[in-house]
Structures are given as structure tokens and as C-alpha cells.
């Protein structure tokens, strides 16, 4: 071994490649309804690295969902630009999965058929994705429910199926718009753990996660962007340096409490939390 190493031509150690940018938003503005209309997003500039878990945190109506919808190509900004892997977003980028607050499962399709929706749209062979579908369903504890219909599943299971649907084609970008907002607290914690697990198992998947839960954002994210109430501006960016994989016990760590306190303080300063 050492002989082989010695024989190899010496070269200076390669510097780690700079993490490439996945999403680049610069000066994004969104105004609804004409020049005097409602300003939802005001000059939002933000870049998300490949493989980063970035959360956008803010109160209801701060434009965080609007921003996500602009990245998804479902809405177009009225100012500024968004690039995904260097390409200007005009339509939904390929290789993207999206999860909404509502699971939006099609009631007339079985769970497995719901997973295959995009495959059907693209007229690809279902066979190619069958194994992946079963893997995902197993990862999210849905094995045995392949042929069940959405109406037979609980809210948490339905949202799990929606996540599996978004992940089926192994997208390198996953957009999540308050995906656990409609779930009870316990299910929500469970889903956070499962999402982290699936993200860890993926190879450098970028996740843009919109939430209004401080604890959820700190628990899941590499970085948090906090937005101000309307018009949405970036009020703070916070790097979360907590060891991974994170267990529930992370929440009892003083660092975790500090991050949360920092955000709560900012919310307080913005007049969103009156703690008397």
C-alpha cells in the first residue's frame, strides 16, 4: 500500500471544490395587482448551496410561500431574477420535487398510482421506478398501503405519501411549503425525523423548506433565513451548527435553545411576539 502511494506522482493536495450554488435569487420582488398593488416580496437576495437544507422562516403572510412558488416556477417575480443551477426560472425546473401543505393526493388513485403521477405525465415506464417506489414507501413506513386509497389513510400517512411522490424521481431539489403545518405536534416531530433520515440517505439533495415553526426550522436546517412581515424582506440569516444526525434530544441542548431564543428575540423586535 505504502509503496503504491510512494510511487504515485506527488501532487499538491486538491482544495475541496467550492460548494456550487443551486438556487441564486437576486433582488426578487413580487407585487400583486399592478404598480400600486400589494408588495409581497421586497428585494430578496439569497443563494442556496448544493445539498443545503435551508429553511425560510417567518410569520403568516410574509411572502415565504410566494418565494418558494417563484423558485418552483409556479409564479414569476415582478422584479429581480431567480436562477436554478444557473438557469433562469421561467417554468418549473426539471428534477424538482414539491410538497405542499395539503397533501394533494388524487383521491381516485391508489397510493402507488399517486407516486407514479409524474411518471405517467412523462410517459415513462412505471417499471423503472417500481423498486424506488417500494423503497420510499418502506422508508416512510407505508409498506402494505400501496393499494390503499388516500381516503383510507390518516393525515400523517397521506403527507408521507406526498413526500414519497415528490422523491420518486430522485430530484436534486426538494421544495417544501409548510409540509407539516396541518399535522398534530407528535406526528410533526416524527415527520421531522423521517425527513432528516431520507435527506441523509439522498445524495446531496437540496431542500428549501418553508415553515413558521421556529423549533422545526432549527431542528432541520443547515441555515435559516428569517423573513419580516409584509412586505417580505430577509431580516436575518442564521447558520445552525448542530451535529448531525440530530435526535430529538438535540432540542434539550443549550445551543438549540440559544438559536431559538435568537429568532424569538427578532420576532419580538418585529412586534410579532409580545412576551409580557
Amino acid at each position, binding site marked *: 500500500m505504502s509503496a503504491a502511494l510512494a510511487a504515485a506522482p506527488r501532487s499538491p493536495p486538491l482544495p475541496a471544490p467550492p460548494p456550487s450554488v443551486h438556487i441564486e435569487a437576486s433582488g426578487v420582488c413580487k407585487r400583486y395587482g399592478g404598480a400600486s398593488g400589494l408588495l409581497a416580496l421586497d428585494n430578496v437576495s439569497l443563494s442556496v448551496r448544493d445539498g443545503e437544507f435551508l429553511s425560510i422562516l417567518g410569520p403568516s403572510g410574509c411572502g415565504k410561500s410566494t418565494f418558494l412558488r417563484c423558485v418552483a416556477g*409556479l409564479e414569476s417575480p415582478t422584479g429581480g431574477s431567480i436562477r436554478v443551477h444557473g438557469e433562469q426560472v421561467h417554468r418549473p425546473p426539471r428534477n424538482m420535487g*414539491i410538497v405542499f401543505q395539503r397533501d394533494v393526493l*388524487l*383521491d*381516485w388513485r391508489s397510493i402507488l398510482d399517486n407516486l407514479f403521477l409524474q411518471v405517467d405525465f412523462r410517459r415513462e415506464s412505471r417499471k423503472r421506478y417500481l423498486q424506488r417506489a417500494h423503497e420510499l414507501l418502506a422508508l416512510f413506513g407505508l409498506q402494505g398501503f400501496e393499494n390503499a386509497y388516500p381516503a383510507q389513510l390518516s393525515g400523517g400517512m397521506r403527507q408521507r405519501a406526498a413526500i414519497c411522490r415528490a422523491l420518486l424521481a430522485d430530484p436534486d431539489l426538494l421544495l417544501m411549503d409548510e409540509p407539516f403545518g396541518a399535522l398534530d405536534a407528535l406526528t410533526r416531530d416524527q415527520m421531522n425525523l423521517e425527513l432528516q433520515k431520507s435527506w441523509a440517505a439522498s445524495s446531496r439533495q437540496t431542500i428549501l423548506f418553508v415553515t413558521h415553526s421556529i423549533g422545526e426550522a432549527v431542528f432541520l436546517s443547515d441555515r435559516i433565513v428569517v423573513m419580516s412581515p409584509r412586505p417580505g424582506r430577509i431580516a436575518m440569516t442564521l447558520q445552525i451548527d448542530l451535529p448531525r444526525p440530530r435526535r430529538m434530544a438535540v432540542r434539550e441542548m443549550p445551543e438549540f435553545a440559544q438559536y431559538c431564543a435568537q429568532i424569538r428575540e427578532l420576532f419580538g423586535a418585529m412586534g410579532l411576539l409580545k412576551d409580557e
Partner: protein
Amino acid sequence: MNSTDRLFSALRQWAAPAASIAVMFLLWQAAVAGFHVRALILPEPTEIFGALLDQPGYFLREGFYTLQTTMIGFALAVAVGVLLAILIVEVRLLESTLYALIVALNSVPKVAIAPLFVIWLGTGTGPKIAIAFLIAFFPIVIDTVLGLKSVPKDMLDLAKSMQAARLDQFWRIRLPAALPSMFAGMKVGISLALVGTIVGEFVASDRGLGYVILTAQGTFDTAQIFAANIVLGAAGIVLFWIMSALERRLVPWHASQHREA
């Protein structure tokens, strides 16, 4: 579910409605006999069923003719109605013009137009089909438009995010999502088609149950009129049942189809 359970649930499903119909006829029989009502005003049920059994072939033949006319009119109403509804939803201009016109025309009593069809189409099957079509057409168009427009927005966003072609969005999302509403319109429509056919037969005809009723009225044969109405009622139930069966088959996933939640 074991077989006895199934038997019981079938009994509950069929026995209760059948028993209530039987009780109605019994009370009717008793009231007519007890209060000595003249047969010209209200015949006894036994007399009505007697009239039915006297000429079963006649009622069957005329009933079949009426049913056939109804089905043709209804089928046309579904084909034209659904197609128009799709156009109205897809083409913006049509919604403010054609759809507004349809909604306005819907308030005209269609029965009042029936004589016009006789002038235009003669006294054959044509005018009856036309009236059945016209009267069934409105609920089908209106409910299909409603269904197609009430597809949840995030469902369409999902399709867009998956780069689905417009036509795919229609076949895989909009149409299935609209089916429950379309069935609501078709169930109303099929009952109305039967009404339309009878109206057509009243206006000018020499066949069908409407004609049977009209001639029986001419001879004050009250029992005959009731007999024809019983056949009509049965036909209406059969038509509605066919639609319900079709609905169970095509939209088993819809909330309205789950008996036990």
C-alpha cells in the same frame, strides 16, 4: 362480512323501502274502500294493478318506447352538455357569452317550448328526443362546469410542477376531479329527460306512456292513468338506479360513496 351479515344488510337496503311502498298501497286501499271514494276520482290499487295485468304487453311496449326515447335524449344531453361545459371552462370568451346565455335560457320553462318542436320536427320520435335532450341538458352543463372549475388549485399547481401537458392535466386531473359533480348533474338530468319525453308525448304522439295517459283521460279511465304512472315511476327508479350503479363504478373513491366513514 359473512353471508348472514350480507343477507341482513341487503334486507335492510331493500326490505324497508319495499315495505313502505306496500304500506302506502294498503292505506290507500283501506281509505278508498272505507270512505267510498268513487273509482273515477281515485281507484283502488287492486283495480289499478288489474288494469296493468289486463294488458301487460301494451304497457310494456309503450313503456319501452318511452324509455328508449328518454335514453336517446339523455345520451345526447350528456354528449353535448359535457362537450360544451369543457369548451366553456377552457375558452374564457365562451364563459361570458355562451355560458351566460345557457344560464339565462335555463330560466325559460322548457315545457312551454314543446309545441315549437312539433312544428319544427313533426309528430314522430324526433320532437320527444329534442325535448328530453333540452330539459336534461341544463343541469348537466351547469354541474359539469361547476365540477371542472372547482378542481383544487394546488392540484393544478402540482401538475404544473410536474411539467404536465395541458391535455394530460385535463384527462388525469380535471376530468376525474369533476366526475362527482358531473354525476350529480346526470342524476338530475336523467329524471328530467323522462319528464321531457312525457311532455313531448302529451303534445303530439300516437305512442308511448304519455299517449296512453292522454287517451285514458279522454275516456275517463282513471285506473289506466294510474297504471301508466306506476310504470313511469318504475322506469324512473330503474334509470336512476342505473346512474347510481355507474357512479359507484366510476367514482368509488368519492366521499358520497362511503357508507361507513
